């Protein structure tokens, strides 16, 4: 795939949001993008939500990337403190008997607060590439729709302003780029296509990179001819050749489908070249991903 002529990819924004279906390698790719940025620009940060284990594992010990973990509770405190003007008051407020269960049961506010944390970090560190390992498809999309929904619901007041700020300074095509990671499998691909459409139509943030991870190694056409010849001869090896052909055909179909489905997307609303990352025998390290991204001119 790397022998194909490469058109230049548009540069990524200061904030890079990485999303895709669960288990497609989002964290690894996000870590790779951050590594790449750190190597080129000197400074980069990987923001992760949750416990931070997977980002740490993907980055490895000798990384130059700053790893930030956004904890939901801290995020809430920080965002509320920003609105109320004091951390202590914010802490009292969040701990209130009535506010506490409400915040737990209405996590939309928590998610808004986590986005606000990303925005604050990006604004306080201009010139530093911020790569965000976003939640998977459905949740990731819900997060990105949130600022506009909340702005419209509140109409005025601090949460309206906070949402407005997020729309202008974070979830805007000039500020951030979305990288969608996918796999060459039917079930994953159809979800990817839905995600890309929703990003474009509902959030106004078309995917700027589409990366197909774990793409099977291409095999020479002559392998099929030889296998068919062997099959025709019959016997034990003939039967074995039939099985091999089944596997080879399945792969070829999957590869063709992946490129067709995504090319259809790309010629439509998406204006991105599909990036294909070849199959790795083991989990690749962020450094390997970074090298590949640099080769592809994708970082």
């Amino acid at each position, binding site marked *: 795939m790397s022998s194909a002529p490469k058109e230049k990819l548009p540069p990524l924004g200061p904030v890079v949001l990485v999303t895709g279906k669960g288990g497609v390698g989002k964290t690894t790719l996000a870590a790779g993008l951050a590594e790449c940025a750190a190597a080129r620009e000197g400074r980069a940060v990987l923001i992760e939500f949750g416990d931070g284990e997977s980002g740490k594992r993907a980055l490895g010990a000798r990384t130059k990337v700053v790893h930030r973990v956004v904890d939901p509770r801290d995020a809430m405190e920080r965002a509320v403190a920003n609105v109320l003007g004091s951390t202590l008051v914010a802490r009292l407020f969040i701990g209130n008997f009535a506010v506490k269960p409400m915040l737990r049961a209405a996590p939309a506010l928590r998610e808004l607060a986590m986005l606000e944390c990303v925005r604050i970090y990006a604004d306080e560190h201009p010139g530093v590439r911020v790569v965000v390992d976003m939640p998977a498809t459905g949740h990731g999309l819900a997060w990105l729709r949130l600022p506009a929904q909340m702005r419209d619901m509140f109409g005025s007041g601090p949460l309206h302003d906070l949402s407005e700020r997020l729309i202008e300074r974070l979830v805007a095509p000039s500020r951030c780029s979305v990288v969608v990671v996918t796999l060459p499998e039917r079930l994953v691909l159809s979800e990817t296509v839905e995600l890309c459409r929703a990003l474009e139509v509902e959030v106004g943030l078309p995917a700027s990179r589409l990366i197909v991870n774990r793409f099977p190694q291409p095999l020479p056409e002559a392998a099929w001819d030889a296998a068919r010849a062997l099959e025709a001869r019959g016997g034990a090896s003939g039967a074995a050749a039939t099985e091999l052909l089944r596997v080879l055909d399945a792969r070829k179909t999957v590869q063709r489908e992946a490129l067709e489905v995504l090319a259809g997307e790309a010629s439509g609303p998406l204006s991105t070249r599909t990036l294909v990352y070849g199959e790795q025998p*083991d989990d690749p390290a962020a450094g390997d991903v970074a090298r590949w991204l640099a080769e592809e001119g994708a970082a």
Partner: protein
Amino acid sequence: MTKVPVTIVCAGGGGVGKTTSSAALAVALARTGARTLIVTVDPARRLAHAMGVEITEVVQPAHVEPAVEGKLFALMPEPRRSTPTFARVLFEGRPDDLARVMRNPVYATMADAAAGMHEIVSLILVAKAVEEGDYDYLVIDTAPSRNALDFVSYPGRLAVLFEGRAVTWLGSMARNVAEDDRGPGLFASVEKRVESMFARILNPRVLKDLAQLFADLALVKDRFARFARMSERMLLGERTRYVLVAAPTGSAQADVSFLARKLSKLNHRPAALVLNRSDQAEPGWLGTLGHAASGEEALDAAVAQVRLEYATRKRAGDKLAALFARELAGVPQVRMPTLESPDPVEIVRALATLMEPHLSVLARP
């Protein structure tokens, strides 16, 4: 008294083939003649369609193969419709209240974005389906996340909110704020101050909508509590088995360890571990081709490539199996090979056949 089906909850990280293995397990159970319901919390559209199932809130017969016709049923609710479904189910028989809730802007926005909402809705739908359906087995494919087991506690958490002091307080506050916009005086109580902060952060109109929403939800709290109890029974009952699904990737392994710890906090132990893409041996035909070099360079290269992949997956599978043999000692493991086919239903059927010998472990009655 409705029959309590044996419930198998499949949990695991993303991308480990959980949806496919859950469907395969359901097919294998239905092949024994048992009435089986497969519930997919996060349905893959392509798989649903391939099984002849619409993504909707209604239980439908699944069409996978003649052997399971009339035995296998599927419930694959659309995540993006869970907000209206939640209200519709709770306010069944109260059209006016339902209309008011659906018009409430706070409800639409908050519920739509609330993580866990769809899981709650799915559980409520399952509870209803079980009441009406007379199933022998229920297979629940949870959302692909480490938080998949949190949904056990979601309904309870919401129920607390509906019943607690918070609702009363919020209701009275909404009235106060609407009447008096001057803010707390110097000697105002702590509660008064919190109220004023709340009004500042939200705004009076939203606060009123929020209070109205809580008042409306309080109307149906008994109904909700009943559903919450039903789902709790379903998920923590003695006829419930947890099957954890993993594959040889770094995060899948960590996810399973995490889920196993969560399970033990709920006083449950995984009934079995399914290890996907963990081939135990290369298939015979590959050996046959490998031993007799064809002399065709391209063919030999292809065979060598496929063999290398099998060997890599076997190594990764062995490592994973050994790791869990230590960490989750005594939990039976079911290793599944990699299946390659462009047709998802073909994979489901093939996996079901491979699972049949393990049914006594995976779905101990």
